[in-house]
């Protein structure tokens, strides 16, 4: 029997980076979802995990955030998903978002600040 065309409904791209001191693990993921009516939506996931010593096998999650990308950022999400993160986005994640995540975990900032910082990873492409 001839194969029917399958519909691609979800694409999930995820990157995990361990900081050079090997004590922090940063996860960034980008999900594309296509609804039945063809509507496309994007979700960004960020998480920060730490461990006290590099000999510890497991990381403890400090904080994570999952946010829907703004509609206006959909082209940037598509470009980021296809081409990968560029330098300004990588700098934004490893510096601004990671630092904000630590401050939210310490109670210095509100969680909404982290979610907006994660969302800002897409427009940071053109920063």
């Amino acid at each position, binding site marked *: 029997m001839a194969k029917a*065309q399958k*519909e*691609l409904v979800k694409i999930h791209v995820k990157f995990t980076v361990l900081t*050079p001191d090997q004590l922090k693990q940063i996860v960034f993921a980008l999900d594309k979802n296509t609804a039945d009516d063809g509507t496309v939506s994007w979700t960004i996931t960020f998480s920060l995990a730490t461990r006290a010593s590099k000999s510890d096998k497991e990381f403890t999650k400090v904080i994570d955030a999952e946010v829907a990308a703004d509609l206006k950022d959909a082209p940037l999400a598509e470009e980021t998903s296809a081409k*990968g993160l560029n330098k300004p986005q990588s*700098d934004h994640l490893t510096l601004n978002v990671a630092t904000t995540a630590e401050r939210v975990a310490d109670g210095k900032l509100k969680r909404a600040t982290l979610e907006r910082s994660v969302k800002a990873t897409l427009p940071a492409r053109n*920063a």
Partner: protein
Amino acid sequence: MRKRSVWAALLVGCRFAAIASAQGSDAVRLEGTCKGQGVEGREIRDIHISTPFDLLHLKFLRGKIDSIKLPLQRRTPYRDADADAAIETLESLALAPPPSFGLPISGSVITLRTSCAEENGKPVVDLDFYYFPAQVPALWPSTRESKTEDTTDAAHSSGAAPRRFWLTPTVAYSESARLVAGASVLVESQTNGDGPQSAPRKESVLGKIDSFSFDGGASSQVRFFSAAITDDYLPSRQPTREESESSRPWIRKAGFRAGVTYRDEPVDDNRMEEGTGFLEWKADSSTVGKVGMVIRYGTAVDGGFTRASGPTATAADDSRVFTLKGFAGTTFRSRHHTFSASYGIATSHTGAGAVFSYSKQLIDVSHGLSFSPNYFPMEFDTHLAAGRIETHCGTDCAIPLAERFFGGNVERNFLSDQSWTIRSQPLLRSLPLNGLDTTAGGAGRGGDRFLAINVTAGFGVARKPLIPSELRNEPGFLQRIDNTPKTVTELLASAYAATDKAFLTDPGIQMAVASLVPMIEAEMAVAQKEWDGRAAGIPAANEETFSICSDDQLAQVPLDIDDIKTQKKPITLLSNNSSHLAESAKCFRQFSRGPDDPLIALANRLDDLRKSINAAVASTDVFVRARTQAEKDMVLADRTVHTLFHETNLISFSPVVMFDAAVIGPSVPGSPSLRYGLGGGGRVTILSTLRLTVGYSANMNRQPNEGPGALFASMEVLDIWGR
């Protein structure tokens, strides 16, 4: 080495059947498109999870995938949220790399495709997950010799092979050797449980043995075997940055190999026999430059006996031989090129004449060019080898027969295993094993010098790629895969830059911290006062944006400054283009009342200060150093991802054309010494299963007592047990 099996034909049939069956079940199961139809709530008829590694016959991987309990069940309604949870489960469980696995980076791409149908009048949906985990093993080889294994046995070469015991039946044919049947056995030691790429335990003397290998074969004309144990030095999988910088870049990995070898084979009407015990040490440097060049070197000592019999054998052919070896070279692999250049020297003592009776020197240079247009393998290999033996005691010490040079269609290696090849005999595929044997020294006596060039070109005419066509043709899929290493490089470069010691030591950056940061602090204090004074007058429609600016950006700048002053964070936290300082300046402009508004002037001054810091950082090598380190870390991963997704085939068939020219000397006066051959053949590769090469090369300047050409065949079953 795992080579050549008479049982391969049967296995080939089984593999073809298995692959066809797997493809066939897909064809029957998938029926219709879901476009325009509601998937939510449809009964799930089937769930299928695949990875490119699954097609490498990695049974252990299939077992792990099957053991994953997804939050989606067959015969239950499809829920989109459950599918998201399934993706999360898939990437976080059995296949996720442990923290100690290779470099501290990983990436993955998962896709979900749906196919809708009706079953007994009920709408159903089939789900097809495709999972590609991109992990970066620390010890991916970067040698010319590793190219073949990467494209034909990727599971083993990437360290994903699960087992520690390998049995590889082999079969080969050469006219003078006849049909040679044999087997290879490899037993590798247990690891510390962190996965196949983990460094072995080293707790006792026996625990230092990383592997045991045995190769043997025999025919009516030849007998050979070798047995060896190895002890490899592997770098720590979790070096700190400081450890990485201070570690010895000239030894990325090193290893001892000790064992015995024996061979007994014909040379014209003579026979020669050689038995040797050896201890060999080899090392590879870290990769050098963007191309990933590796310097390798080593030394060996071996001792044993040589014997010969036949019409032209001499008493000197029966000797005890003690040899010291040294060897060095360089090699690299890029996407389309492989290169290797090696030099080897051996000085031997036979008991006659001086301390060292003779020396053997070898040069081996090879280059490979390969492309895979639309997955059709195109390869062009050139190999140049030369050798010279010189005696150190005149006519008092003759060179034993087994030590001399003979040409033929069997490749001989100066070193003890195939991880590094320095040819010790001329390869001439138009003559059988040791078929080029006559020099001024006599018939069947071989030469004391040789020069050989071999050219092999293969052009793929049939293939079935590893990556399914539906995914290859999916817009953007391969682009996403190809860009995974690039993203990882960017993230790694940012991470390296953020922890660069120059932030603490560079005078320019220190000056920026000492002078510019207080100025930013002062300007921000003024700006904050101005900002706060406007809070009451912000229109209701803009209140949320104003509040977000206050909470997300302005409130964080003083925290950033504190972290920089206390050296918790690098100064780039303040100066990067989407920093809280940069965004604060944007907020000032957004809420300014016109071009003369003091907030505009403050924003401009803050931007100038931020740019001054960036200039101070840019004047150092922080970013260059970080990018260089990241690119160096990722060069092998980038190449391997490309090989897997753009070159690797489940099955491929390539016709092969070959040309050889070889000479051994000193030549017989009045007789042409150069031999050259032209031939062709075919190569069949079944990924992770079989490599088969059959060919015939014509002897283009045939001499008396030589045949018109030679048939050669080799068959290598990569893993008889399957995976």
